[in-house]
């Protein structure tokens, strides 16, 4: 397997606060990895740096064999992102939003692609509705559709199933697995839903106080901590030296 992302000693300091401390890990092509940690563990800071929204204080990010910190624009069209904390324009319709982002990412055959993601995320009935008229679950689906509009090879998701009902959550999980299978895409997501991590992920990265404290398959983590669920592992890790 070949890695598409490597970070080495990735560090972010905000004046006196060390938000991310010498983070080193790599992601193999076609894998799904969860970034876990409690509040303030450094997950959002890490995702922001991997998206180019935040400049690291020091360290290296190599993405698709490019120096992402110096030359992010050469790879940004190959990735995408969805987060419940970042909205799409509310006064635009779903179709208009998808069209704008399709153009932004240089997608060819835009109408065809909008129809594809619309089918995948069951958006047909709401394509011509304004985003502000949708429920939060529907908005999450639109945001996920936007994140796949350019068929990204690297997908970063922040709590991808937040505000979705259990049935939709399960269906989104299957959709992400299918997308990974079809496109060979690599997915990194932050989540607090440990069951989701167990069902979806090949690997998990556990962060605490800005440091990477564990990495491995969910199964390996369960064995190492002699626990039955990742939730128990998570609680154990956070209790250990809190």
């Amino acid at each position, binding site marked *: 397997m070949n890695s598409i992302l490597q970070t080495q000693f990735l560090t972010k300091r905000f004046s006196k606060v060390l938000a991310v401390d010498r983070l080193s890990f790599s992601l193999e092509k076609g894998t799904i990895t969860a970034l876990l940690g409690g509040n303030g563990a450094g997950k959002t800071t890490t995702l922001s740096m991997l*998206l180019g929204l935040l*400049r690291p204080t020091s360290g290296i990010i190599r993405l698709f064999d490019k120096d992402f910190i110096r030359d992010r624009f050469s790879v940004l069209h190959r990735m995408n992102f969805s987060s419940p904390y970042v909205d799409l324009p509310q006064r*635009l319709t779903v179709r208009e939003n998808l069209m*704008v*982002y399709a153009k*932004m990412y240089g997608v060819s055959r835009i109408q065809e692609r909008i129809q594809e993601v619309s089918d995948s995320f069951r958006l047909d009935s709401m394509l011509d509705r304004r985003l502000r008229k949708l429920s939060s679950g529907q908005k999450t689906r639109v945001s996920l559709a936007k994140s796949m509009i350019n068929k990204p090879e690297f997908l970063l998701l922040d709590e991808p199933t937040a505000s979705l009902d259990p049935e939709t959550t399960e269906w989104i999980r299957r959709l992400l697995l299918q997308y990974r299978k079809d496109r060979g895409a690599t997915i990194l997501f932050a989540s607090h839903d440990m069951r989701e991590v167990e069902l979806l992920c090949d690997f998990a990265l556990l962060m605490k106080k800005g440091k990477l404290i564990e990495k491995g398959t969910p199964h390996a983590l369960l064995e190492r901590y002699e626990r039955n669920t990742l939730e128990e592992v998570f609680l154990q890790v956070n209790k250990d030296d809190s």
Partner: protein
Amino acid sequence: MVIHRFCLSRIFALFIRYYFLLRSSWPRIIEIAYWPTMQMVVWGFVSQHFAPSSPELTAGGLLVSVVLVWDTLFRSHISYTLSFLEEMWSRNLGNLFVSPLRPWELVMALASISFLRTLIGMIPAALLAVPFFGVSVFEMGFPLLAFFSNLIITGWAMSQFVTAILIRYGLGAESLTWVLPFLIAPFSCIYYPLSTLPEWMQEVSVLIPTTYVFEGMRSLLLEEVWRQDLLYAAVGLNLVYLTIGVGTFLFSFRLARQHGLLLQCGE
């Protein structure tokens, strides 16, 4: 060539985002034209009232013309900055800047939609001034284009500083959008010649491009003299301020990336 095509594609993508927003609300479109038209009507009557006693103030439709041209600057600045604020209000900056969009492409897109919105605002007011008050700014011909272009650019230059501050300090600095044009208004010699101002204000005024635009308009409409020297001064100063403004915006964007402000921008 491919890179250039994609640059234009991204600028166009953002332009249509603002266009979609604009067309989504008829009241918004009407409002854009409403304020310049109201300004024109009020100042048109003021002009008629003063015409017999102060011909130097109203000759050649001067008062109505300067009001319209000044409003061009205001509309250009407001349209640019409001479009940027839309991104903050809708918490969309994060989505924009994880896409391949370069900051300067955002500047180009905002300038393009600002131009369209300024035209929507100013053309009806300028056309209505003809039947209402017999004042046609279009009769100025090329000089009108020069005055109009300069004020649009001054508006964009101001917007660079405001958006730079908005990126750095967030929506708490929103009111600067409305404040800044009025800060330069007294120095711009819109309704009076430069010589009216006290000396210290004149020293500031000569550093502002709008001063040369309005001095040029007075020269053209009252003395029928087209002063190219004033045009060059306005263009030169505009280029300086626009360059410094864009530089300030890009610097602010860089700081925002260092401090993690792009994800936090919003209500």
